[in-house]
């Protein structure tokens, strides 16, 4: 199982220099991964985008010029912002419903992953399976695979121990395999 957990175990801070341009470069480079996590944490595309924006601005605003921002901090900010937003959802339930209705009516592109022509069917199956995972497994999987975080960092971002994060990751893969190959697992 070492191979399973051996990837990207070292910390890899997002190198962010001072000034707006490096931040914009970072946004362009890492934005897709951050948005993926924001989508997982929220109920609608509009909320995901709002949460990403607010979280990104919080980090940008709070960091001194020469600091290197650890990716875990950005993901933590996204999660906290999403939690805060979740608390408000009841208060603006109607608006939320309208947003979802608009998304559906306008056929907003809500795919989590890039559509690559030759493997589109498989991508769709994987994405569908990921969406069926329980939320706690989903977030660990996303942070590990696409966030490139260590279990220690995932634990810090989600308020868990590293062991629990690793355990959830393994569960998520097992559950995914079961969803994707139900017959194979039964035999």
């Amino acid at each position, binding site marked *: 199982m070492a191979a399973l957990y051996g990837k990207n175990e070292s910390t890899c801070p997002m190198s962010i220099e001072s000034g707006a341009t490096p931040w914009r470069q970072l946004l362009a480079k890492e934005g897709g991964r951050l948005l993926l996590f924001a989508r997982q944490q929220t109920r609608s595309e509009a909320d995901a985008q709002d949460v990403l924006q607010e979280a990104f*601005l919080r980090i*940008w605003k709070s960091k001194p010029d020469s600091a290197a921002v650890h990716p875990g901090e950005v993901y933590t900010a996204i999660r906290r912002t999403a939690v805060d937003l979740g608390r408000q959802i009841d208060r603006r339930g109607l608006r939320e419903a309208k947003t979802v209705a608009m998304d559906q009516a306008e056929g907003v592109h809500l795919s989590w992953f890039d559509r690559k022509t030759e493997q589109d069917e498989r991508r769709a199956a994987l994405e569908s399976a990921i969406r069926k995972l329980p939320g706690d497994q989903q977030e660990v*999987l996303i942070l590990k*695979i696409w966030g490139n975080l260590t279990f220690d960092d995932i634990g810090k971002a989600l308020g868990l121990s590293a062991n629990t994060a690793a355990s959830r990751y393994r569960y998520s*893969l097992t559950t995914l395999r079961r969803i994707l190959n139900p017959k194979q697992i039964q035999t």
Partner: protein
Amino acid sequence: MNPQHEASDDLSRLEAELTSLEPESLPELLQERIELAMAGRDGPDQADVASPGLKSIGADPAFYKSEPGFRRSRLVRFLLAPSAAAALVVLTLAVLFLRDPSGNGSVDTEEGLGELQIVDMEPDGSFIDPNVATFSPGRTQTILFDIIDDGIVWTSENEAVRQIRYLFVESVSLQNPDGSTLRIDTPIEEVFQEPVETF
């Protein structure tokens, strides 16, 4: 093969397959929106971090919580910059519309000053054919930038109302056949007032 190893290999393969999936890239409009929000703030510092959970789409919540005079001046400063740019673009477009439709670039004046020749030139000195280089409307997007609840305010008619302001940025993109594009961002503020009962 040992079933345990087989299962482990299976998971490793699945993991590799997942890794090969690339998250969808950030929508261009969202990136623009965040950049716009960054432009509207002072920049990285240790000061006022946004209040949790505020449905702020780009503006600094602390900025709206500060004293009214400061708040207004910041708002005006923020709104004036794009307004000036938009005005410049509108002026340019107006000059283009004043041209003779025949395309010879002349404008008749009432003062009898004769014909004013307006010509565009390429960097290499050659003339641009006005019939070719024309901007055509492309994408129009209205972005909700922020919602500000001013609470209960009194109108000039001494009526108590609840006031909510919606800040938008209307973005219009124009495109030239040669591939060049022009974007005009116009800040818009819509104010809604709902009368409230007073006792």
